């Protein structure tokens, strides 16, 4: 291989690419930057069929997309920013990336605690982070029923938790800070840290509980649903946390959202709003079902696997997503103090 040939070929490839990327102006379409990666394409295709509006999307990680929208400023291509976790939505709102929406449809479809008070962003799907356990090892009366109980030393070495770099962990801890205040939350989280085996992801937590490394853990419900898809007889079950309203901690299970908003400098704000409205109403099944999440819209029924195995009527912590979203940085610092890896 001669060097010169490589250089020439490379230059040709670059040239043709640059030419190609300068080409034609696209028809009216909504451009979505999304930190949520899955099952979106089917939903967008359906949206295009029903409305005639096509959707182009750029998947990525939340923080990178947020930085990119911020840096692009008025030049941004994004009409819609979709992301998982209330913390990500709250910070995007704080950075001024979203435009407020005046949409009776969205206000109707999305409960008030799952949207921004200033209508900058709206939750679109619900995910519950709750307690899971090995159903071969623990009988129902032995299963811990609150997040707080897991700090008890009887779970020392029997508890599997996700690392503190993960945004779901951070949101759960942020909700603990909101409910208990800093010092009590620190005590509980330190207890977790003392008890727990820290793992890199929820699937690993579920598999580790099935394999006997731990007896209990905390995971998002849809990861367990996914595991059931692979093995319906997996000896891992879910219990909704903090359900008894008669007890001090009976505030309900921590629920997080994935959601989005229309960007401040959107070229097609009307189409963007239309997409969000569709996702919160007619598009709920297409958006929510494949990933086994709960619909944000209470008039939409959840898909059958989670409805059958996890139920629908559990008590949800009604803490504002915006509130625990803004407490996220405090949660990270608190976990540092607690020695939570």
């Amino acid at each position, binding site marked *: 291989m001669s060097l010169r040939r490589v250089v020439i*070929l490379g230059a040709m490839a670059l040239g043709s690419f640059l030419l190609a990327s300068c080409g034609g102006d696209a028809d009216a379409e909504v451009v979505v930057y999304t930190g949520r990666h899955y099952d979106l394409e089917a939903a967008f295709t359906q949206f295009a069929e029903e409305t005639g509006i096509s959707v182009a999307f750029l*998947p990525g990680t939340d923080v990178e997309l947020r930085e990119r929208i911020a840096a*692009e400023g008025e*030049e941004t*291509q994004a009409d819609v920013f979709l992301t998982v976790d209330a913390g990500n939505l709250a910070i995007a709102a704080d950075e001024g990336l979203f435009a407020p929406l005046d949409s009776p449809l969205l206000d109707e479809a999305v409960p008030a605690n799952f949207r921004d008070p200033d209508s900058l962003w709206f939750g679109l799907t619900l995910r519950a982070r709750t307690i899971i356990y090995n159903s071969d090892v623990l009988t129902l009366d032995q299963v811990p029923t609150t997040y707080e109980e897991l700090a008890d030393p009887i779970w020392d070495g029997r508890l599997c938790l996700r690392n503190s770099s993960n945004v779901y962990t951070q949101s759960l801890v942020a909700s603990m800070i909101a409910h208990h205040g800093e010092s009590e939350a620190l005590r509980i989280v330190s207890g977790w840290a003392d008890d727990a085996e820290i793992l890199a992801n929820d699937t690993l937590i579920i598999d580790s509980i099935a*394999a006997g490394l731990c007896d209990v853990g905390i995971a998002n419900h849809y990861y367990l649903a996914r595991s059931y898809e692979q093995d319906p007889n997996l000896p891992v079950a879910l219990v909704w946390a903090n359900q008894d309203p008669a007890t001090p901690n009976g505030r309900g299970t921590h629920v997080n959202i994935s959601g989005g908003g229309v960007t401040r400098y959107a070229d097609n704000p009307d189409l963007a709003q239309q997409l969000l409205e569709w996702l919160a109403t007619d598009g709920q099944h297409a958006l929510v079902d494949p990933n086994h999440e709960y619909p944000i819209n209470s008039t939409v029924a959840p898909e059958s696997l989670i409805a059958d195995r996890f139920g629908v009527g559990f008590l949800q912590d009604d803490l504002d997503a915006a509130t625990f979203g803004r407490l996220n940085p405090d949660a990270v610092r608190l976990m540092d103090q607690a020695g939570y*890896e």
Partner: protein
Amino acid sequence: MTTPEVTHELVPTARERVHLGIGDQVSRLGWPSASLLFAALVVIPVLFLATSLLRPNAEVWRQQWDTRLPGQIVSTLVLLVGVSLGTVLLGSGLAWLLSAYTFPGARLFGWLLIAPLAMPSYVLGFVTVSVVGFTGPIQGWWRNQFGADAWFPDTESMGGAIAVFTLVLYPYVYLLARAALRDQAHGAYDVARSLGAGPIEAARRIVLPLLRPALAAGAGVVMMETLTDFATVQYFGVDTVSVGVFRIWRGTFDRDAASEIATLVLAFALMIIGLERVLRGRARYGTAAGADAGFAPQRLRGSRAAIATTVCLAVLTLSFLAPVAQLVWWATSEAVGPRGTPLFSRFLGYLQHSLLLAGVTAIVCTAIAVVVTNASRFGQPRITRLAARLTAVGYAVPGPVVAIGVLLMLVAVDGLLGHLGTGLPGVIATGSFLGLAYAYVVRFLAPGLNATEAGLGQVSEEVTISARSLGARPMEIVRSVHLPLSRTSIVTALVLVAVDALKELPIVLLLRPFGFDTLSVWTYLLASESRYEQAALPALAIIVVALVPVGLLSRQLRMSSAPEGPAEAATIGTWGGRTDEFV
């Protein structure tokens, strides 16, 4: 890297005379300014970030220092030491085994052993954790056999991380060690042996010192790769300083605080560069007239041959064959499963994007590396060496930090042009191929530079001086002497950069133009949601694509590695002969 001090003492008069040559004024200005320009291109985006240090946030530092930072520094050090020891032992051991001996399969292993270069560490990371980890089939079987509490080494640990990095990164050391053994050590070893030294003594006293620059360079690359990784370590629960940067950035949404902590990563990187310089030593070993006769590899027989074959096979299996087999299994079961492979129709596009990006980056980086390296021969050495070191800085900066730096810089340039009334069209500033390729070049100049420096380092300075005293102009010397003599290292530079660029992740995540998804982006996005079965196909595609440049490199190795006889001498002879034509 050359250390001209030594040469200077050797041939001061020759050098001074050369400096009076025609065209010297041009080269004295041209070469240093070119190398300074490239250095500036690399350093400016990094400086954009470093401005955060001008107003340090004492609270962040104190809070980090009181909690995780000390532990992170210790784990970073342990990881770096462990991985560099592991790769140096494994890489140089294999290089020696395959250079000094021949045994069944030796020729095949000689080039197959660089295959792990094509394996991204985060891919081996997630495959290892899911197969060898607690929930994987191996430990499941183990518990079935020996009871639920049977001891098994903890996979998700520092040890596991060191093992994975060692298996993926040893080829960097192996390659450089083999090149050094081939190009330099053989003659000296034979001479030592003929003078009565035993094989071990000859290896220790002659080969090891000769290898030292190559080992130091290899370990330097390995440590940089390990230092800036943030994906693989997290699979193993190892909390390094780089992980800390990400955690602050993502968790507390504080980019300034994150870039302040990132300067600690930079400090580690500078330490590595310094360490590498020290370990390389001041001495340099060039052969005056190109390469000389090769090793006559000793044939191993019986059990020793079997052991040698087994060792090579074991390394290759653990680092490459077994994980690839697992990925193939996942990808196949996904394809025949009820869901089918998601987004299968788009893979061709991902592939093209990966190829284009890697190709452009490799060519640009290598071209710049050649200029910067050669500038050290013709320009004012103090300036050109400084420029070369600065140019390598990008490699020490974690990918996302480079990406943000480039982003900030391009936005600033855009704003500046806006004031002048022109402005870059549309989103050229952010999310363009140009910006993306620029960030890649900033990040990956160093591996290219390392390779071309090592290559030119083997062309003795006397050769350059002779050519100049015969009236050749610098460009002529580069074209007719330096490039042909360091051709291997130029291919090595192209390959190392291309392979790194194929595997790169955070920069392309942040800066890619709309719709410009690559294989690594999809692998990462899927693996980050624990969808390993679905991540298997794009991961395999990265490996297959990366095998192409790696194959080129291995062909180079095969062409010039010992085929046990006169053919080898002929190849080497050609190189020697070519040298003679010019000198």
